[in-house]
């Protein structure tokens, strides 16, 4: 941080464009050259200013986030402290299908899923930071989802989600392990996680929690993105490109027969143009974008080629965002780029299963965000009838 972050005092010159109204960059109007942060705040222990004078004069704006920064610092030290982590031990599949999960908030979900008791707040923050990824997806797709027509889901969204829930909650078919119990099995539910960065390196016990919430359903998680091998250096080099695996994807199948995880280090538009995953079925497929930065000035041009292809598939797309501003900016960007070709599946709002732990941005200690703070969804617009283009049967008969 001392090498990347600059002092946010207004008398410095600005080094970059402000990315949000809360960013401290647009306060900077002075003439002092930009200086790296050096002085640590004695309360939170994070370097926030270049010198003590700047820290003292900017104290009120630091006081707003000092408690959060202290909490982040303590949680980081806690992870490195080497203590026993009972909160990272996850339960197996739900013992009985009739024991339904309660998705009202984190505590009821962990209790009804038979997690070990997490009494301490710090342990809760550490655990939810990882579990937010699979459980955010599950909270939208499950039939006992806390989001309903009354508050967040739209009518069009309910159509998409009902199609997915038809597959995710199959009726019992009398299948068993003998020959008499053979039943035709549907293909796996495909979750395309685009722009995957840290989530592709999550421990597989965390991802398998998604499969445990849906008994008798198989999943195929597909991580797609140029940075999808972040933190996974041990798995390099990628497999060679063969006709059976034309993009050199890493496929993991040893997850109990209920989940398969593939990782593609490539842009989605490349794979879509190669028709790698065609056809897309709205009963089986779903796109998930974890804080994609669709509207962020640094990354929105990378998404502009992918977005029309996503809308064309007519498959629901669940997006999350770091903060409320981030999420609304993404929504505005999508609405502008789609030019009316999109339907909102779920209105933007706070994610009930967001990470309770706040994260620090290394390049700016004042930028505090949390994983999956907000969640919303959209989909390409479905038309009941196609546009009339002339040359129909009636016209031919009258000629």
């Amino acid at each position, binding site marked *: 941080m001392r090498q990347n972050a600059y002092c946010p005092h207004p008398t410095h010159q600005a080094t970059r464009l402000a990315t949000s109204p809360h960013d401290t960059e647009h306060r900077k109007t002075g003439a002092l050259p930009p200086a790296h942060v050096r002085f640590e705040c004695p309360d939170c222990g994070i370097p926030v200013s270049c010198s003590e004078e700047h820290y003292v004069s900017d104290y009120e704006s630091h006081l707003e986030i000092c408690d959060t920064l202290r909490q982040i610092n303590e949680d980081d030290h806690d992870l490195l402290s080497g203590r026993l982590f009972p909160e990272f031990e996850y339960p*197996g599949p739900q013992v009985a299908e009739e024991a339904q999960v309660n998705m009202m908030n984190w*505590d009821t979900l962990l209790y009804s899923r038979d997690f*070990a*008791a997490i009494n301490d707040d710090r342990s809760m923050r550490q655990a939810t930071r990882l579990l937010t990824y699979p459980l955010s997806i599950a909270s939208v797709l499950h039939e006992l989802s806390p989001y309903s027509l009354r508050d967040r889901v739209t009518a069009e969204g309910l159509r998409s989600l009902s199609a997915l829930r038809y597959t995710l909650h199959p009726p019992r078919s009398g299948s068993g392990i003998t020959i008499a119990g053979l039943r035709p099995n549907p293909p796996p539910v495909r979750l395309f996680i685009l722009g995957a960065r840290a989530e592709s390196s999550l421990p597989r016990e965390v991802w398998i929690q998604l499969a445990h919430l849906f008994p008798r359903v198989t999943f195929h998680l597909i991580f797609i993105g140029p940075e999808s091998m972040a933190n996974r250096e041990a798995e390099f080099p990628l497999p060679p490109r063969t006709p059976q695996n034309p993009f050199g994807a890493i496929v993991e199948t040893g997850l109990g*027969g209920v989940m398969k995880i593939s990782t593609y280090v490539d842009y989605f538009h490349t794979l879509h143009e190669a028709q790698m995953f065609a056809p897309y079925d709205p009963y089986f497929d779903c796109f998930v974008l974890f804080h994609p930065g669709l509207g962020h000035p640094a990354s929105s041009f990378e998404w502009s080629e992918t977005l029309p292809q996503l809308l064309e598939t007519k498959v629901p797309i669940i997006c999350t965002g770091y903060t409320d501003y981030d999420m609304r900016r993404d929504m505005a960007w999508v609405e502008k780029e789609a030019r009316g070709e999109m339907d909102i599946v779920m209105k933007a709002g706070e994610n009930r299963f967001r990470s309770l732990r706040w994260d620090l941005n290394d390049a700016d200690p004042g930028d505090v965000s949390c994983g999956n703070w907000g969640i919303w969804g959209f989909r390409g617009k479905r038309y009941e009838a196609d546009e009339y283009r002339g040359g129909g049967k009636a016209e031919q008969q009258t000629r």
Partner: protein
Amino acid sequence: MRPTQIWRMPLGRIPQASYYDQKNRPGAALMRARQPYLVKNAVTGVCLLGFVAAVYTWTLKAIGQDDFSDVPIPDAPTQPAHAPHMSTVKSAGSAQ
């Protein structure tokens, strides 16, 4: 489906991972999980108890003793009282 956990031998003190503490009182995680339902359950409980109490009260009042104050009580009988059942016949009929 087999769960993907690895079974480990517990070494040393295993930290308590139950929703109840050592004295079997509900722990913090359990109280937090119950918290959205506390008020609604309390109101439901009060309503049920109130209904039961109302039913009991009404029933006891309904089968309570009637008010006979408007009935004139007759005077005591003039024959001297004697012990009932003084005859020697002990059964209703006997085979002869």
